[in-house]
C-alpha cells in the first residue's frame, strides 16, 4: 500500500522569500516520488522526481527536494519565490503499485 500526505493545503509567501511545501509518504516498497505543478488552466507538469539515486533532487525552475527515508518525507523547496511560481503543487508516490498516488495538493500563493 502507498499513500502521501501534503501537510498544508495553502502556503503563502512573499516574492523573494524561501518556499517550503511539505510532503510525507507511506509505502510498503522503496518508493519513487514526484512533484508536479499545475498552473491555472494548464496540465500537470513534472517538476522533479526521486528514483533511488541521489537523495537531493534538483528540478526545473530552481526547485529541489530532499528524500529523507528516516522521516518518510520529500519536501519541496525553493530559495526565492517568483510570482510565476503561484500554482497548485502535487506530491506523488509510486511504490507497491506502479499507479501513482496523489496528495491533495498545496496551493502556493506568492505576494508581491
Amino acid at each position, binding site marked *: 500500500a502507498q499513500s502521501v500526505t501534503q501537510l498544508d493545503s495553502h502556503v503563502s509567501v512573499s516574492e523573494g522569500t524561501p518556499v517550503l511545501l511539505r510532503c510525507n509518504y507511506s509505502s510498503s516498497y522503496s518508493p519513487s516520488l514526484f512533484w508536479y505543478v499545475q498552473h491555472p488552466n494548464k496540465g500537470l507538469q513534472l517538476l522533479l522526481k526521486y528514483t533511488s539515486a541521489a537523495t537531493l533532487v534538483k528540478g526545473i525552475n530552481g526547485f529541489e527536494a530532499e528524500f529523507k527515508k528516516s522521516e518518510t518525507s520529500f519536501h519541496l523547496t525553493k530559495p526565492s519565490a517568483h510570482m510565476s511560481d503561484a500554482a497548485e503543487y502535487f506530491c506523488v508516490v509510486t511504490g507497491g503499485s506502479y499507479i501513482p498516488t*496523489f496528495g491533495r495538493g498545496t496551493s502556493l500563493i506568492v505576494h508581491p
Partner: protein
Amino acid sequence: EPEVTQTPSHQVTQMGQEVILRCVPISNHLYFYWYRQILGQKVEFLVSFYNNEISEKSEIFDDQFSVERPDGSNFTLKIRSTKLEDSAMYFCASSEVGYTNYGYTFGSGTRLTVV
C-alpha cells in the same frame, strides 16, 4: 516538448447523457491513464490501459465507465448516463513504460460539468 492533448477543455452535459472525453497521448508512449479530480478533493486514479486492454482499474471505474483506443492515436473515456457527482476535472496521462521510476506526462484536463 511532446504533449498529451485533451479535448474538449470544458464540457457541460445534462444528467443522464453520455459523454466522451478525448486524449491524444504522446506517440511513442505505451501506457495510458485516466485520473479525475473532484473540486477540492484529491486526484484519483481511474484506469490504466496497455496493449489495448485495461491493466488496472480503481473502485471508481465501474460499469458506467469505459475506455478505448479506437484508432491507434486517440484514447477515450466514455461515461454513460452521467450523474451530478461525475462533475470533475478529468486528466489523461501517458508514459513510455509502466515502471515506477518514470514520470508520467499529463494533459491539461477536461472539466466536466453535469447539470
